[in-house]
């Protein structure tokens, strides 16, 4: 990829604080219109990576290009939108005043403010002081400022924290709209949830390294996590079922089997062969959380 089609290009990025190595050889590219989820536990280095891309902190090694510019330079900042995890604006300003200030800093006309407040559902509270806003409303105001102007790159840090399900749904819509307009999105989060699953690619950080960077489907395939098959045996026949199929006894009547995706059909055929000794079958595919844990655990093993 050249600079022109990579909105965000990170290569060999290192960051140390004293002797502590916080980031170690991070390489990550985000193309225009691409949505990438950046996952990792607290302290995995997500926030440090975001601050480096924003140019708030200087790297110890490696390179970052934001829309082809050095991070922190005026063109890079003009091209970058940022939604911090904790948005606490000044309580004495109204939402409209605060957003107008950001619009003027971004070089946008104050005229653009009202439609944005409308877009995030804050127009009725626009002239109330931010001190009276709920956490969700402050989060919406934060989102509104990230929508100012035409940004090439957007960095969203835990955008769903403090949002109720309806607001979360609105957030998905805003994110999809930004991507459709060609903005490259990097969405940092603690875990793999429904939002991150809707992104184009998933990057997982652990201990300052990037341990995974691929689409959800590819990650799931590569991880080859077992599907669990939970059988409920007829009274008294749980032992016979376990003797025949193996697996573990979960309680008095349940037997749990683990199998790969390829073995699944063969196992089901064997279950069917047991006739009425099995009363019920439940299939549990690997969850998003299992997948996330798998990749985070890889580093510590």
């Amino acid at each position, binding site marked *: 990829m050249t600079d022109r089609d990579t909105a965000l290009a990170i290569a060999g990025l290192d960051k140390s604080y004293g002797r502590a190595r916080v980031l170690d050889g991070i390489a990550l590219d985000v193309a225009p219109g691409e949505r990438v989820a950046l996952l990792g536990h607290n302290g995995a280095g997500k926030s440090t990576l975001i*601050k480096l891309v*924003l*140019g*708030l*902190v200087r790297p110890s090694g490696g390179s970052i290009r934001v829309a082809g510019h050095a991070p922190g330079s*005026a*063109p890079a*900042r*003009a091209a*970058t939108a*940022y939604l*911090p995890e*904790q*948005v*606490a*604006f*000044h309580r*004495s*300003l109204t939402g409209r*005043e*605060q957003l*107008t*200030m*950001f619009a*003027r*800093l*971004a*070089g946008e006309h104050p005229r653009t403010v009202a439609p944005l407040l409308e877009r995030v559902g804050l127009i009725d509270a626009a002239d109330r*002081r931010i001190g009276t806003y709920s956490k969700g409303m402050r989060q919406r105001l*934060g989102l509104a*400022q990230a929508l100012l102007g035409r940004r090439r790159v957007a960095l969203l840090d835990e955008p769903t924290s403090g949002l109720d399900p309806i607001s979360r749904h609105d957030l998905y819509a805003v994110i999809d709209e930004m991507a459709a307009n060609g903005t490259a999105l990097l969405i940092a989060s603690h875990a793999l949830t429904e939002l991150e699953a809707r992104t184009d690619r998933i990057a997982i950080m652990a201990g300052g390294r990037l341990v995974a960077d691929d689409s959800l489907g590819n990650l799931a395939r590569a991880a080859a996590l077992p599907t669990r098959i939970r059988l409920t045996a007829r009274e008294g026949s749980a032992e016979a079922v376990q003797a025949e199929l193996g697996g573990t006894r979960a309680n008095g009547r349940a037997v749990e089997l683990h199998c790969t995706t390829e073995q699944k059909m063969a196992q089901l055929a064997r279950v069917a062969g047991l006739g009425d000794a099995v009363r019920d079958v439940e299939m549990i595919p690997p969850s998003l959380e299992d997948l996330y844990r798998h990749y985070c655990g890889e580093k510590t093993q």
Partner: protein
Amino acid sequence: MIARTMAIAAAEFRIQTRNRWLASATVLMLLFALALTFAGSAPTGSLGVDLLTVAVASMTTLAVYLAPFLALMIAFDAVAGEAERGTLGLTLTYPLSRGEMLLGKFAAHLAVLATAIGLGLGAAGLAAWAAGGAGAASALALARLIATALLLGATFLALGYAASALSGSGAGAAGLAVGLWLVLVVLYDLGLLGALVFDDGGAFTSHVFPWLLAANPADAFRLWNVAGSQDVALVSGMAGAGAALPGWAAPLSLFLWPVLALGLARAAFARVEP
């Protein structure tokens, strides 16, 4: 650049008005200035000067303490408070330099100080004129007092930003601001006084001491106001120290200090990683 600085200044000025800092600073200045003007009106007859002259001398003593204090109270939260709220990191991701941000706040805070000092000292001056008369000389002395008090306030605003940037938290910045005020406005003079007594009229007293006096912004403020008007010098009894210095020393110090202090604040701000 101007547009971005003005955007910060406009928001900051609103915050100061809504915090009621503008109102309380103005009321504070006004009350003290009026009280001093009328409490200090006794010596007019014996010295043969008008009431406004006496009032300017009293208000010089007031402003030397109050202008730095008000400035530091307004300024100490400028960087540390934003860092604590998390808005500093967000604001700095916009195409806004740290210098522009600092200048925007400085413009807003200076406007607050100008209102408080101008209204407070101006109203007391008007009252003195109405009650005891004023001449062209004493009116000029009042104008000079207001202008120099603003320069002094500007210096301490910038020093407040430096303190705010150097200490990580709002509470730490408040402590550092009080410390700055004590050292520059109170302890510095006490130290010089001690040195004078120890020196007992030697070379230090005649050659070094006046320059040390001019080097401190608060003392430079006093010197300029005293040296600027014969009558004020007569009333305040500070003519001796100023006489040993060239006339440009105190004004130069008072003009240089805000610039230097802003430079210092900018350097301290550069080290902040939000």
